[in-house]
């Protein structure tokens, strides 16, 4: 016999408040907690904990280890090459460690590469020029990026994501391709030039290409998103009532910007400047493609040593010096930042 019980229910079921199904996320959590509760897993977990390896340590340590290995290993190789000397061989440098006889190991440290960097003024001037160009580009990026980030952070909420996406949009095409595009834009027969002539703003088309200005334009254009994003985050966090309070206390808008907005977004300014300055110092693609023979930058010199002169030891020495010169100040700066940040946080 079959009993058919017709059920017709309207509205919410008063008794069963839990849904009869679990969402995918709940299923995953349930499975995970079941797995973690399982005896052998628990035992292994407590063993690992004894060794100081908790979950948190694992998820942070593994990527750090990865980064360390792939930073340190190439660094040590480059360091080794920088103490070597040129040879017509494959690879084109003399081995650092040689066996003089069966029992005697000969380590030949060639300091000549570093001496050469010091003696030939090309390298020092290239380095100084890179620092100058990176500094100027960073300032330009800050001057363009700050109002931009401010505008985005103060726009209406539904506009913000669209504007931020537009800032990041260039990343969707290749960096190289975008720099190549600037060759077309800055050249003598570029549409920009033609427009300027047609408007009567300039008499004859000039070319910005192969000047320092082309390099500045290229760097500022390429690195602007790295400036805008940290600035946006800092400005968006700023409490607007602080500006109202300043205004209420008799502070004019310009003054309020200088004494409230600027100091309270300092972290964003520092982060953005570092993200632009550091890669811009070692930049070689932009000066090679857009710059002229005078736009000497250390990254470009390094590239030419490696691939044109095939002088790997000197190129490595350049790389090591550049790294030390950049890392030292950055670490000191970072520490000062942390000390200052600790006070007003």
């Amino acid at each position, binding site marked *: 016999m079959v009993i058919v019980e017709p059920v017709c229910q309207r509205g919410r079921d008063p008794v069963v408040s839990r849904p009869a199904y679990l969402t995918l996320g709940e299923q995953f959590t349930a499975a995970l907690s079941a797995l973690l509760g399982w005896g052998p897993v628990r035992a292994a977990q407590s063993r690992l904990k004894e060794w100081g390896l908790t979950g948190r340590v694992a998820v942070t340590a593994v990527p750090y280890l990865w980064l360390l290995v792939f930073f340190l290993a190439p660094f040590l190789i480059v360091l080794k090459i920088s103490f070597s000397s040129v040879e017509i061989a494959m690879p084109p440098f003399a081995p650092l460690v040689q066996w003089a006889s069966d029992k005697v190991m000969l380590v030949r440290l060639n300091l000549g590469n570093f001496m050469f960097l010091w003696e030939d003024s090309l390298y020092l001037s290239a380095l100084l020029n890179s620092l100058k160009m990176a500094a100027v580009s960073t300032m330009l990026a800050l001057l363009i990026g700050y109002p931009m980030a401010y505008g985005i952070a103060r726009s209406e909420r539904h506009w913000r994501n669209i504007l931020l996406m537009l800032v990041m949009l260039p990343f969707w095409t290749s960096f190289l391709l975008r720099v190549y595009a600037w060759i077309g834009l800055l050249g003598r027969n570029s549409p920009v030039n033609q427009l300027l002539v047609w408007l009567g703003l300039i008499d004859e088309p000039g070319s910005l290409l192969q000047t320092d200005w082309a390099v500045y334009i290229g760097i500022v254009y390429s690195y602007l998103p790295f400036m805008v994003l940290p600035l946006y985050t800092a400005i968006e966090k700023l409490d607007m009532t*602080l500006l109202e309070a*300043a205004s209420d206390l008799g502070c004019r808008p310009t003054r309020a910007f200088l004494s409230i907005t600027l100091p309270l977004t300092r972290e964003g300014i520092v982060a953005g400047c570092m993200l632009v300055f550091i890669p811009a110092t070692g930049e070689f693609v932009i000066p090679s493609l857009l710059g002229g023979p005078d736009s000497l930058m250390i990254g470009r010199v390094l590239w030419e040593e490696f691939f044109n002169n095939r002088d790997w030891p000197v190129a490595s020495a350049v790389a090591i010096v550049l790294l030390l010169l950049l890392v030292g100040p950055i670490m000191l700066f970072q520490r000062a930042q942390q000390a200052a940040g600790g006070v*007003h946080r």
Partner: protein
Amino acid sequence: MSALRPQEKLKPWTDPAAVPYVRIERVTKRFGDFVAVNQVSLDIYKGEAFCLLGPSGCGKTTLLRMLAGFEQPTEGRLFIDGQDMTAIPPYERPVNMMFQSYALFPHMTVVENVGFGLRQDGIPKAEREARVAEILQLVRLTGFDQRKPHQLSGGQRQRVALARSLVKRPKLLLLDEPLGALDKKLREHTQFELINIQETLGVTFVIVTHDQEEAMTLASRIGVMNQGEILQTGTPTDIYEYPTSKYVADFIGSVNMFEGRLVEDEPAHVRIESAELGGTVYVDHGVSSAPDATVWVAVRPEKVRIDRERPDQLDNVFAGTVKEIAYLGDVSRYLVALDSGKLVRVTQPNTDRRDDRVTWEERVWLSWSPSANVVVTQ
């Protein structure tokens, strides 16, 4: 010597010759289609502590922000001390504000925060330091000079915010929920301190709050707001004892409201018949309303007496059954059901120690004097 008694001195709004210090003239503020403040007119006198009281979203904060200059009125004008302030930017107004969030500058010390306003005015360093020290002493916050806001407790931050807004000696001090972020104990304590400081400095206060107890303690007068309009303006006593509308009666304190209609309309007294009460109410004041119109009788719970025996009184006596009792120590609260089913709230002080108080389901008599009730028509 002045012939005025202290109370009269403190009531400039009763003097027709008094000149208002702050004048809000038919001010309207619209945000798109939404009317935040609707045709508000208000006069505030020098030395007052005026409280704008209302539920959130009633427009009280918008009105305050217009006084500070953060918002521009869509219509109407604002005057402070006779000067038209409508188009003056906030940084040029003789007004300071204490923000609900305090809005202390996190990168500045206590002294820098408090001295910020003086620096904007270009006051020399020595005078600045002296004034900052003086005001910090007034708010009892000496010894914290070099602390940053994050190193202070909530109460201390509130004091810094107060000091910062007072140090410029503003003509008008605006306080947005000044005690909102403090816990109950600290609130009560700070309320009285605020009044002391206000009286010491003689600054005119405009306070925004949604907390009626705060308004009752701090205010010389209260303006009850709802939906962008001021419903009633008056002293705390006026607002509590003589509400002019159902909304005000209900918003301030707790009240019993009985619907009825006028059956006897004399200049000195009225009688109202109410089905909810199952009888007529005698009110010892006249009511301006059309005969037979629906009116409401409002009676506060503490004005209702509760007895086992029918009291020796002709009017305003009704029978009911006790439904709920809450013994709170100092007072007891009762919920009494009238025969119509209408529930009446009664609060009685426990003045003496007794064990034979009325109990659940007991038949009792409720009564109040003819002057205890108020008739409202809207």
